[in-house]
């Protein structure tokens, strides 16, 4: 989730580092590096055996805590693979979009639309396709789950990489040009470093979102076909279905443990490492520190490994690229007229024609599918859309009501921030979908239903975006503005209207936009749920999508998805974008 560096952890870490005896570490570390290597190998063997084994005819999700480490391992591998896939795709997509002016606008528009399509609408299609591709292997279902998480993670990362490339200072890219960097060298020395910080923050958001959807993916049942996967999500879900309190507690504890471990072992070192990619002319004072990173950087084994593998490979690749460029120059200067190969242009035209024909064909068929939707169903989808619209906005409102005062209080009070922030971060990192079965059971006990439950889930999933942004906004209000309001004895109302609300406005807006997108997406999980062998649902667009995919009614699924994407895009254009413009012009604190 969103980390805000704070003073407390700094002092603690410097303390931890001063206790580390310098020279004993490299040896210990070398041993642990070796151990990690062996563990990785074993993990791969385990996975291979499981993936390429035959799918279990009947999936039994064990409730024993002893099954948890393996389940947690499967879930983490799914998230990890999906994340790596997203990273590679995001970099590729952003790169192509940034350097091909002809298709740039198209690619960015596509990104905007893909971003607003609810991930879970892809679920049935992707699952069926993947299972059809590997009918006798477990890997089919696994690939389906990974691809789905991928579609939930990739868009914001791709957008971040694209906009980073676009904002590289002109003189830096000119320097790369005049010194004739190859595309590879430019990627390694200019584009990736420049994009690193944006990519890291977006990765954290993406992985948190990945957990949210993983929980849903692991529990997927399509009609009579059972696609459930052994993992943390299915464990929690099964525990909730059977009212097994101890199992639920074990599951949640494992979840929190994984989240905290990822934060400490992966994100912190990565953030500390990415600090050197800050594009700044003067060194800033505050740094995130990570003892783990420090140790890794001291390891002799890693240094040796680098020198003998990646180091010497890149040398060779650079030398070859340089030679190829020189050869090309030589050829260009000897040949009188550069011959434009007509075959390649024809080929590309042909490819474009075939591609657009395919797109057109499938679009026509999809529209044909829509024609089978009956009028009553159409009306129901529209009613559902307005219900979900109200629900999303109600959850945003509820979230704002408590997060704004609390966030401002935390932001204004450094001592409170030191205590509250780490707690809030852990709370925020637990995927709401993991808590949902537990929450729903409790609600049913007190007599609530799906209507309240769905709003609660949206709230659980999205309030943190608002809270952390409000805290950041309150911290960013310059102290002289606060002093002015003290000096003139502003009353509470005036203080909020003239200083606090305008000050946090841009941040609040960012939080609200993220939360709104998240809430729309969450509605699919929130409004329709299997619990204790029965289906609970309420009126809503999300419920329409879920039930359509449950019953294999693809025309309804398509229509409902289109309606949802349209609503999200329209709200973005009509509400958020103008508000952002106002935030940029009127409520910006720095000139």
């Amino acid at each position, binding site marked *: 989730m969103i980390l805000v560096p704070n003073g407390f952890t700094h002092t603690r870490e410097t303390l931890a580092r001063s206790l580390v005896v310098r020279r004993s570490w490299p040896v210990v570390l070398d041993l642990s590096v070796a151990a990690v290597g062996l563990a990785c190998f074993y993990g791969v063997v385990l996975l291979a055996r499981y993936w390429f084994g035959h799918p279990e005819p009947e999936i039994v999700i064990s409730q024993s805590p002893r099954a948890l480490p393996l389940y947690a391992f499967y879930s983490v591998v799914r998230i990890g693979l999906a994340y790596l896939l997203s990273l590679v795709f995001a970099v590729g997509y952003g790169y192509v979009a940034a350097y091909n002016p002809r298709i740039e606008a198209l690619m960015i528009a596509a990104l905007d639309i893909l971003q607003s399509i609810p991930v879970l609408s892809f679920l049935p299609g992707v699952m069926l396709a993947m299972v059809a591709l590997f009918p006798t292997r477990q890997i089919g279902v696994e690939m389906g789950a990974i691809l789905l998480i991928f579609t939930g993670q990739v868009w914001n990362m791709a957008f971040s990489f694209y906009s980073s490339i676009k904002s590289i200072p002109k003189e830096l890219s000119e320097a790369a040009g005049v010194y004739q960097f190859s595309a590879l060298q430019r990627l390694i020395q200019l584009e990736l470093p420049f994009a690193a910080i944006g990519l890291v923050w977006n990765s954290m958001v993406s992985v948190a979102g990945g957990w949210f959807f993983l929980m849903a993916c692991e529990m997927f049942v399509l009609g009579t076909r059972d696609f459930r996967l052994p993992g943390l999500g299915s464990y929690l879900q099964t525990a909730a279905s059977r009212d097994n309190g101890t199992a639920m507690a074990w599951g949640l504890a494992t979840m929190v443990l994984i989240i905290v471990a990822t934060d400490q072992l992966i994100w912190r070192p990565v953030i500390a490492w990415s600090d050197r990619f800050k594009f700044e002319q003067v060194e800033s004072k505050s740094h995130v520190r990570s003892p783990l990173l420090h140790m890794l950087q001291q390891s002799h084994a890693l240094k040796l490994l680098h020198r003998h593998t990646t180091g010497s490979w890149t*040398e060779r690749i650079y030398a070859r690229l*340089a030679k190829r460029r020189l050869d090309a120059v030589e050829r260009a200067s000897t040949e009188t007229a550069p011959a434009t190969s007509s075959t390649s242009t024809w080929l590309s035209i042909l490819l474009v024609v075939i591609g657009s024909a395919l797109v057109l064909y499938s679009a026509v068929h999809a529209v044909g599918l829509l024609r089978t939707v009956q009028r009553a169903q159409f009306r129901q989808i529209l009613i559902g859309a307005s219900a979900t619209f109200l629900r999303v906005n109600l959850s945003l409102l509820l979230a704002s009501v408590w997060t704004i005062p609390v966030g401002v209080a935390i932001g204004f009070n450094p001592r409170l921030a030191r205590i509250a922030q780490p707690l809030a971060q852990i709370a925020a990192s637990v995927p709401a979908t993991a808590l949902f079965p537990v929450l729903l059971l409790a609600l049913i006990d007190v007599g609530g239903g799906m209507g309240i439950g769905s709003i609660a889930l949206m709230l659980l999933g999205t309030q943190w975006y608002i809270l952390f942004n409000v805290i950041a906004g309150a911290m960013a209000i310059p102290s002289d503005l606060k002093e002015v309001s003290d000096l003139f004895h502003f009353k509470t109302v005036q203080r909020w209207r003239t200083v606090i609300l305008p000050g946090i406005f841009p941040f609040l807006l960012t939080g609200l936009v993220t939360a709104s997108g998240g809430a729309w997406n969450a509605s699919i999980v929130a409004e329709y749920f299997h619990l204790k062998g029965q289906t609970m649902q309420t009126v809503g667009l999300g419920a329409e999508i879920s039930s359509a995919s449950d019953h294999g009614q693809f025309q309804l699924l398509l229509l409902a998805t289109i309606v949802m994407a349209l609503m999200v895009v329209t709200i973005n254009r009509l509400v958020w974008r103008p508000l952002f413009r106002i935030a940029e012009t009127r409520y910006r604190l720095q000139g």
Partner: protein
Amino acid sequence: MTTPIIRAERVEKYYAQPSENRIQVISPTDLAICAGEIVALLGPSGSGKSTLLRMLTGLSAPSAGQVYWHEKPIASANVNVSIVFQSFALFPWLTVFENVEAPLRAKGMDTAERRRRSQRILDTVGLDGFQSAYPKELSGGMRQRVGFARALVVEPEVLFMDEPFSALDVLTSENLRSELLELWHKKTLPTQAIFIVTHNIEEAVLLADRIIVLGRNPGHIRTDFHVGLVHPRDRKAAAFTQLVDYIYKVLTQPDAQPPALPRTADGRKVRDQREMHYQMLPHARPGGIAGLLEILLDHAGKDDIYRLADDLSFEIDDLLPIVDAAQLLGFLLVTEGDVAITASGTEYADSEILHQKELFRTAAVEHVLLLRQIVRAIEAKSDGTVSEEFFHDMLDEQFSEDETLRQLETAINWGRYAELFDFDASRRRFTLPQRLTHDAEQDRTTGIDA
């Protein structure tokens, strides 16, 4: 003279517009860089100095014409040049050593050779001991030394410099300049020629063997001459100050003969800025204009621009827009490098703030077409507001996108100062000045109350 290393033949740069006009940035220009000379390129902002430099290095392709590297078209030649950038353009995530080594890596050189060469050049520019520092840990002067080291490590035949000293303080830049000259005269560098873009006239006269002065709208060469002074040059010498004065005169004088208008390939006429609808607003603030006039009054109403700039320690790029703006408004007259205040200018400088605004308002409406149009448009509309986009589209016909935005920004700045109109930044609309609407509102509310 031997054959030139780089030769530009009728290169020009223009931006095509959606309408049939196109915006000419640089008109067809011939230029050659030969071995053994330091060439300085001077010109006011907007004369396309940097654009010309980028065309000569092959970084940007000319819209028409051709650049030759040793008589081969530059696109298909193995060009060996370097650029020292104004912003240094160092990679902040690489150490000093890695920054310097990066161009050698691109050449595919092996590790030992890279190390040897980088080390030697770091010694030469005085960066010994800073190898493992990151650029952000260094001062501006040290950072530019890294910039020089990175440029020189590839042993370029021509070293290009794009205002290399303008981001540094006076002492640091003086120091770096003299070290550069020393390296050049001792022939420590394998470099054959240096091409420096600058807006500092003294810097050009201090360094260059040959000075080229560009004019603007569109960019063209106004004069190109050799400097006969011997090194080291003395700033106080009569010959030196005469040369500086001469260049000031060239820069402030309007062109004696405007360059011939080119025609596009299909025979359409290229529009010249001078015959255009809107005059180019110089980007000066009203406060700056008032300040300049007041200083002129203290100097008995007349002064030499060179001395004025020297007194204020202004560089030409800072001072010229203010002078141009004052001249456009009829507060100043420029003749032969001298500025003289006019009667209305004197009145303006002597008045208190409200009267000043009134004088500025009258002068602006009289002399500036754009401001006049904005005022009329607001008056003509019943709701008293006009969208910025409307004027943006009209200016767009004539100026590049960036320049259009700057023109609007200046117009808004002047209009707000003169209380000709107000501008609502969030709706991007021009509105009636606050004063009037405020009065009207008050009338209305009191009417209701009564």
